[in-house]
């Protein structure tokens, strides 16, 4: 007997055995369905959140550095030390821009939190980001309509604004935002651009869909004096390999700009975009791993169920095994037969579980939660169910294969 024939024979016998005990097979499969469905659903949810976060951060620029008074992502410097640092000013920015050679784009930004109104409609607590025309080059933002403000508009401090997609939806449900006058904190601004949806709810206030950009001089003019405001300098490196070099250069220039002596500590922070990912992985990652483990337990329980039923099945079919062995079946034939029985049950359960997960994700997607079951999920479902089947089927199959034909035949 060659291997393929054995396999075919084994599969046929398994299918027959599964069909012979319909109720039992259905229940065993149900255990696997529950397990696979919850694991797949959890993994797609995790992936959805990750993806939306990454896209959101990426839309604000890749390979970026943010020079700021505050450390954003690490706690090495005590907050009271950072509090006592001098604010970064527009002069600092101008000097930095003059001296920096490596970055492909540099822009200042300074924000305020305001209410935006258009006619009767209004949205509150919106981050208004003041910046210059170069800002768009430090990001990967894309436009739905219109454009970013020009050098002329930025330098002369025109009252123009670029709004995020979420804000457009709320203020202009029927579209047509371009060239309309909106009121930001009571001051009129003309909308010149609407951003495309970048979609990252997990970024909260920093979600670019919920931001408004205006020329930075307007921030100083209308929303608070430049004396107590600190400016963030957005710096974009040409590529990811250059990030460290740009950071080195920026540190040197900033120390010069801020007039630091050789023995003084930096009184500014250079925040790397990578920090956002690290922080996210640290905080959300733990929750994700925990969620995955817990749903994994459900699958584990399903696997135990299969193993249990396979043991029963081996016991019930002791005589059959004895006969097959007596007429020449080898150990591995019996082993293969029972493992394939377990694997088939798992595979069927896995596929149905996948179907349940797809329906489940459609329901969850109704609540604006980014889940999509994709090819990876299919592979995941098939793989884990096959592995579960083989692992949980192995012990009973091994027991069966080791049965002594003489004893087995005598078994009542």
């Amino acid at each position, binding site marked *: 007997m060659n291997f393929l024939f054995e396999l075919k024979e084994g599969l046929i016998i398994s299918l027959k055995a599964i069909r012979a005990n319909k*109720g*039992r097979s259905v*229940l*065993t499969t*149900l*255990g696997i369905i*529950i*397990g696979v469905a*919850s694991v797949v659903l*959890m993994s797609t949810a995790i992936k959805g959140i990750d993806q939306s976060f990454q896209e959101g951060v990426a839309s604000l620029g890749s390979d970026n550095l943010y020079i700021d008074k505050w450390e954003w992502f690490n706690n090495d410097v*005590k*907050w*009271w030390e950072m*509090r006592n640092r001098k604010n970064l000013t527009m002069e600092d920015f101008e000097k930095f821009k003059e001296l920096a050679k490596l970055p492909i784009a540099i822009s200042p930004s300074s924000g305020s939190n305001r209410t935006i109104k258009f006619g009767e409609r209004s949205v*509150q*607590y919106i981050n208004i980001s003041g910046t210059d025309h170069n800002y768009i080059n430090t990001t990967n933002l894309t436009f739905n309509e219109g454009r970013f403000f020009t050098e002329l508009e930025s330098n002369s401090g025109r009252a123009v604004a670029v709004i995020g997609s979420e804000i457009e939806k709320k203020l202009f449900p029927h579209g047509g935002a371009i060239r309309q006058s909106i009121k930001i904190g009571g001051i009129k601004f003309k909308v010149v651009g609407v951003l495309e949806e970048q979609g990252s709810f997990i970024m909260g206030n920093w979600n670019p869909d919920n931001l408004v950009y205006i020329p930075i001089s307007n921030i100083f003019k209308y929303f608070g004096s430049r004396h107590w405001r600190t400016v963030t300098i957005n710096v974009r490196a040409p590529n990811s390999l250059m990030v460290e070099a740009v950071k080195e250069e920026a540190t040197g220039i900033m120390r010069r700009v801020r007039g630091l002596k050789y023995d003084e500590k930096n009184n500014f922070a250079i925040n790397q975009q990578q920090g956002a990912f690290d922080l996210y992985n640290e905080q959300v990652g733990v929750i994700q791993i925990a*969620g995955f483990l*817990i*749903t994994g*337990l*459900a699958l*584990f*329980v*399903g696997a*135990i*169920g299969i*193993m*249990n*039923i396979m*043991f*029963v099945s081996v016991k019930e079919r002791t005589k059959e095994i004895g006969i097959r062995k007596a007429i020449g079946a080898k150990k591995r034939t019996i082993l293969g037969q029972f493992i394939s029985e377990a694997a088939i049950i798992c595979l069927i359960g896995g596929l149905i579980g996948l179907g349940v997960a797809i329906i489940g994700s459609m329901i969850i997607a109704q609540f604006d939660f980014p889940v999509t079951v994709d090819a990876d999920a299919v592979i995941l479902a098939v793989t884990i169910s096959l592995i579960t089947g083989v692992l949980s089927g192995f012990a009973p199959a091994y027991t069966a294969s080791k049965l002594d034909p003489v004893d087995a035949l005598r078994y009542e």
Partner: protein
Amino acid sequence: MKVIEIIKIALSSLRVNKLRSSLTILGIIVGIFSIISISTIITMLQTSIEEGVSALGKNTFQLQKWPSVQTGTAEERALIRNRRNMTIEEYYKLRDKLEGEAKQVGGEFWQFGRRVKFGNKETNPNVNLCGCTPEAFPNNNWFVDEGREFTERESKSGARYIILGRDVSKNLFVNIDPIGQEIKIDGRKFTVIGLLENQGDFFGQSQNNFAVIPIKTFKSYYGDRHRSINITVQAYERDSYQDLIEVTEGYFRTIRKVSPSKPNDFEIRSNENTLNIINEMTAGVRIGAFVIAGIALLAAGVGIMNIMLVSVTERTREIGIRKAIGAKRKNVLVQFLTEAVTLSLFGGMIGIVLGVLVGNIAGSFLNATAVLPIDWILIGVSMCVFIGVLFGTYPAYKAANLDPIEALRYE
């Protein structure tokens, strides 16, 4: 048939198939384990939060401008932001009105992030400074264990006395008795007259990094124009506590001239409503975790049902014989149900023990207080019984309905 006898039969038949029973039990263990471990961790976190937040004294509540947890829509938040500050005059008016009704009424101002200096030593600029009336001490559960509190007279006269929290005195004084020493805050001198006892910590963060000065002194140094006073009120006893909250609310509305149609323009914080807020906030997490963990239990239940069905099939003859010699349907039903419940209850017990253990270990990494979640243990036990009954009923029903003649003939 006696209960004990039924359980004995169940146990002996479970013992016949040791491997099968232990695998089934393992499923239940895992299911219950996941629920109990998660709820233990959540309970631990919650207990730690509660201990940290509910720092108010016995039968005490607090009036303040800001809610302790900001929730609600942007409009609601804007309303809160636009509230008028609570003033020291309002405090005195309320104290006069509550004379005789409340045990004591305290007022306190806070200034955060100060640096305290002694000689050439200084703390980090993260010490919180409180200016308060003497009543604030018992109302906040602050007890002086060395030295003394300041008196009503000292409080009113603006004496330059200070009482230090544990961390502040530890950082400044080594081998020196702090009492009677002179320290400096923002360039002003204060004499240490007392040390507060340990206030515990909150997720590993000490609650002792503060210092207290008389309210008059505070007012003259830091001003009271741009800050809001917190008022703590203590009831005489538990019974009058709820009434006192209502009475105080009414008085304070009058003092603040809040028109009857308007909501309060201040918050009432009591240990109870803090707990409620925490419960509300964690409810979503708890439900989510519960559902996810419940899935494993569901799978385990299906496993029980499956194995019970096998067991019924295998023991068809036994059932036939029992019925033939006079066992009623009810007896057979109870027998198999008991078997299912015993299985799940046994697994549940082990799952609970493991869950509490692992949950406590995991929670201790988050610096949370260890707990024994009695309520969840009870819920776990009843869930086991429920699972056993739910998934044992069909097999037991099937067994009970077997025709004795057919069953006896079964090969």
